[in-house]
């Protein structure tokens, strides 16, 4: 099946992105039902807006949070993408960057934060801890991956990932946002976590 929509990211050729297989699969799923021309155009416009305005929630539990601050700071400047408007209130944020270890005590809090966010909302698991428990997988008090409690859109490995990896992860998320359908199923999605 032909891919109808393919996100373009400025200064980054499509072929050089990793994990294009999953991406193509995702695009096919989203485009399975097809859509008429006008709706597609509108969708493109809205997706363009959304993908360029992913305001992160200020959420950091440990080391990765410091790297996130470095990403926001002058040298890497996440503002170039338009993501510098970090919101402290989950209601106003679009993406939660889970940066740092999530302990079992923190897990309900994280879930609540996620629930408090307004749709459309995205989750990026940043760093080994958020992806799988990372260095603390064997601990009794650490959640082994946030995808156990909330659905994760992009995984950014590293311990902690360097600022460029952060930006790369955000671009992957942009690609994902850019193929969504507003007038379809995905606006009011209630994605279920794995397991």
């Amino acid at each position: 099946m032909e891919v109808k929509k393919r996100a373009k990211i400025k200064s980054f050729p499509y072929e050089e992105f990793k994990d294009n297989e999953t991406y193509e699969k995702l695009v096919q799923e989203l485009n399975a039902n097809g859509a008429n021309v006008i709706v597609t155009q509108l969708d493109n416009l809205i997706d363009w807006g959304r993908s360029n305005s992913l305001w992160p929630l200020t959420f950091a539990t440990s080391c990765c949070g410091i790297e996130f601050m470095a990403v926001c700071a002058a040298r890497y400047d996440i503002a170039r993408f338009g993501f510098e408007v970090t919101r402290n209130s989950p209601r106003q944020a679009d993406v939660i960057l889970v940066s740092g270890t999530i302990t079992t005590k923190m897990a309900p809090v994280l879930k609540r934060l996620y629930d408090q966010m307004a749709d459309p909302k995205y989750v990026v698991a940043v760093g080994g801890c958020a992806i799988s428990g990372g260095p603390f997988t064997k601990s009794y008090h650490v959640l082994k991956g946030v995808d156990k409690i909330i659905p994760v859109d992009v995984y950014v490995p590293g311990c902690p990932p360097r600022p460029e990896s952060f930006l790369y992860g955000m671009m992957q998320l942009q690609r994902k946002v850019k193929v969504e359908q507003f007038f379809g199923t995905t606006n009011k999605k209630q994605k279920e976590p794995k397991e």
Partner: protein
Amino acid sequence: MSNNNYFSGLFSGIKSLLVGLGVTMKEFFTRKITEQYPENRKELKMFDRFRGRLVMPHNENNEHKCIGCGLCQMACPNGSITVTTEMLDTEDGKKKRSLVKYEYDLGCCMFCELCITACPQGAIEFCTDFENAVFDRAKLVQQLNKPGSKVAEKKVAPKPEAAPAEKKESNPETPTTV
């Protein structure tokens, strides 16, 4: 508060504010230090000691140096490495361990370098690739040995920086828990 204090406080306060304004105004016109990733991808080069992800270098004949001893797996603090091996009969009738699958979980790795220091062969190393974000958790579990690859026949001397000096040339036949 005496009147004197009131006014001197006011003026020194205003002065301090003006000094601050001066600093930011100066900064307004200095050159910006932002590095523009991804626009600078071509020029961007990581420091060579930067640990991006674990790789197993293969030579042009699709050969690697891993003998499947599993020391790295034992050294790893949180089980990011799984080495699967099988026993093969060599030509001279001896049993020899051979690597089947070297799985590495990038999503779990803590970049402590213990696997590399443990490796007697210098078969694994960190590369400086940092663009690793994916959509699917399963994609982070990578197989490091390329399909169809085999261990380099010639005994390669371990690279000096990858295998520290104190590591004795360990015997490949050492029983491991693999």
